[in-house]
């Protein structure tokens, strides 16, 4: 169970991690645009380097503005600590590389973001870390893939592109039998939509670039330590339980317990890999978080309307959203996302691959781009962009149909989004008619 604050999430979103500082009383979180911090004395410096006291040394490792964002995100997710990184991808890489070494193995959901799949399938493989991909809600497949050298079960809370909600309680009950942590990329389910840690995650990763920031202005990521995994009882993590030579043989678990992972990431990954977030980006992301809960309500309301509206359009061949009974994970989606399972939806249009392309090209309000989670409505037609070189059969194998349109529903006036989509659907209709 996660809990880091006793304030309402709306209050945490505005306040957690910062009280007006004493010098000037700045109400907004100040941007500490600095690389480094003057030590009080030689003794002070040496005790900071030796983790004898908390504090900032160098902005690659930690920065006061970034720390406010970290503490706010940890509070919102109910984690014991958080480390912000330069991007969602670096948050994922940092997590994998902190918990896995050459010779180790990961069990991952097959339905994940393309770059994450490539990281696991190719880049980490090159470093000697292997991944087995499974259908994450298939208990037998998940259990069957676990090996003696497995270090984690990884999934996205809402998988990409099939919008399948991961059954986190079930995944946790299997993983915990084997002493494995459940690492969840919750990018599509920002804090407030789902209690990711309480539902079964031990480590939560976000691309803060998306809904958390919300304004499409800054790239960033975060790793949140759930604080709820016993690294020693697991027996699989000498990285956290045995002496760590570069820090005078510190044993992270013994020394820090519930925030052992966050402290290890700070001490090792931020120091050696250095994928740190800039204070300016932390500030922009903090501005986003302040209104995250309000925005999510509007995202969800618009998504519900769009799902209904699309279902009633004759040019729409199918609609997928986890809240629809036709989605295979609908039952668990309702349980984990009582207010609505996010603002991503997919649908198919008449006219196949060409129809999808025509739909996108005639939109004026929605933006055709490779991002999600902006306050503005974003669309993508994989068949004519990211997957345009794939054959029909290869696309089916990737779980993407040629007519699939992916929508990240924004918070514009719903009638305006619908009017824009109505234009697109008419264009798809023309294509379909010309084909017949």
């Amino acid at each position, binding site marked *: *169970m*996660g*809990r*880091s*604050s*006793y*304030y309402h999430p709306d209050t*945490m979103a505005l*306040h*957690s*991690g*910062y*009280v007006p500082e004493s010098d000037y009383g700045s109400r907004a979180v100040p941007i500490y645009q600095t690389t480094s911090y003057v030590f009080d004395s030689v003794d002070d410096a040496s*005790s900071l380097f*030796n*983790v*004898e*006291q*908390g*504090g*900032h040394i160098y902005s690659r490792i*930690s*920065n*006061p503005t*970034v*720390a406010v964002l*970290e*503490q*706010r995100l*940890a*509070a919102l997710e*109910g*984690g*014991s*600590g*958080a*480390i*912000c990184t330069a991007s969602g991808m670096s948050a994922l890489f940092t997590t994998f590389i902190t918990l896995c070494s050459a010779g180790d193995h990961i069990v991952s959901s097959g339905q994940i973001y393309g770059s994450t799949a490539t990281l696991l399938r190719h880049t980490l493989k090159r470093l000697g870390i292997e991944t087995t991909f499974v259908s994450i809600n298939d208990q037998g497949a998940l259990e069957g893939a676990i090996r003696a050298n497995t270090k984690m079960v990884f999934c996205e809370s809402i998988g990409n592109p099939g919008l399948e909600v991961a059954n986190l309680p079930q995944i946790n009950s299997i993983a915990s039998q084997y002493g494995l942590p459940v690492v969840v990329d919750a990018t599509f389910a920002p804090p407030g939509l789902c209690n990711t840690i309480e539902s079964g995650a031990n480590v939560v990763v976000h691309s803060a670039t998306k809904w958390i920031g919300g304004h499409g202005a800054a790239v960033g990521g975060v790793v949140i330590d759930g*604080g*709820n995994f016993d690294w020693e009882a697991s027996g699989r993590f000498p990285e956290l339980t045995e002496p760590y030579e570069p820090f*005078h*043989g*510190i044993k992270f678990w*013994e*020394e*820090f*317990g*519930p*925030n052992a992972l*966050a*402290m290890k990431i*700070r001490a090792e990954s931020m120091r050696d890999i250095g994928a740190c977030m800039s204070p300016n980006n932390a500030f922009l992301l903090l501005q986003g978080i302040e209104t995250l809960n309000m925005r999510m309500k509007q995202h969800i309301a618009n998504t519900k309307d769009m799902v209904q509206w699309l279902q009633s359009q004759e040019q729409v061949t199918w609609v997928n959203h986890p809240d629809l009974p036709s989605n295979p994970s609908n039952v668990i989606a309702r349980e984990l996302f009582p207010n609505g399972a996010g603002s991503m939806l997919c649908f198919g249009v008449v006219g196949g691959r060409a129809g999808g392309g025509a739909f996108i090209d005639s939109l004026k309000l929605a933006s055709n781009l490779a991002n999600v989670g902006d306050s503005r409505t974003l669309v993508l037609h994989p068949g004519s962009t990211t997957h345009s070189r794939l054959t029909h059969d290869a696309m089916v194998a990737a779980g993407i149909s040629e007519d699939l349109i992916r929508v990240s529903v924004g918070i514009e006036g719903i009638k305006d989004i619908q009017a824009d989509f109505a234009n697109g659907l008419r264009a798809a209709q023309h294509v379909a008619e010309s084909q017949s």
Partner: protein
Amino acid sequence: MKLMVNGYEAHVATGGKKFEKNLPTVLFLHGSGLDHRSWALQTRWFAYNGFGVLAPDFPGHSLSKGAPCVTIEDSGKWLADFLDAMGVREAHVVGHSQGFLSALELSKLRPTALKSLIGVGTAAAIPVNPMLIETAGRSPMKAADLMLQWGFGHQTQMGVSATPGMQPIAIGRQIMGNNPLAIDLQCCADYWGGVDAVGLVTAPSAMILAGQDKMTPIKAGLAIADHLQAKLVVLKDYGHMLPIEAPKQVLVALREFILSVEKQIGASSSS
């Protein structure tokens, strides 16, 4: 490190360095439901600056095995046995909250074992609402939630942390929610020997108290400081969980006091 005390394995943190018996020892004692990690940001400094550090988990807490002590008197006896097992004859004894009550009992049993006595966020008696003990018996997590709301001061409630990126409430919750909190609270509620024990203390003493302490209100701590003629440090902007909330200020106060006692000992032994 691990060692056997009364037939059970005990875990004792040594500040990240091997414990050296021939250095002056500082013994850190955690409060109700907590463990050695409350002292993470004080113990390392002492260990790396000329002291031997011992921060045990009391029996049945976190990494120590065995049944939890059911009275403060028992925990005082356990401390005496623990020091014997370590081969330590005297130490500066630092107790947070309930840990200070155990230190008082140790002092009663072994007055010469204390080079100095330091209370942090504490008093000579810690009365506990029976409803809280009952809640802890049913659900340690629920009781931990109540205690963490009272225990931490305003800044920590607002998610401010001395260690960048961390959330002390969640850390405390994980530790307290999985430890024998109800037994600890009952120990505190049943203990009335503190004032007598304080009267017997001969070692130099200090009290580090919190202005926003709702668990052991500062008035009670001030009375003990007066009684002990202790050196007094009041950190007015913090709550009961001082070692975690204000680690640097607590370290500075401990450091100054313990170094001054060591200096006096050095001066009197050379004169």
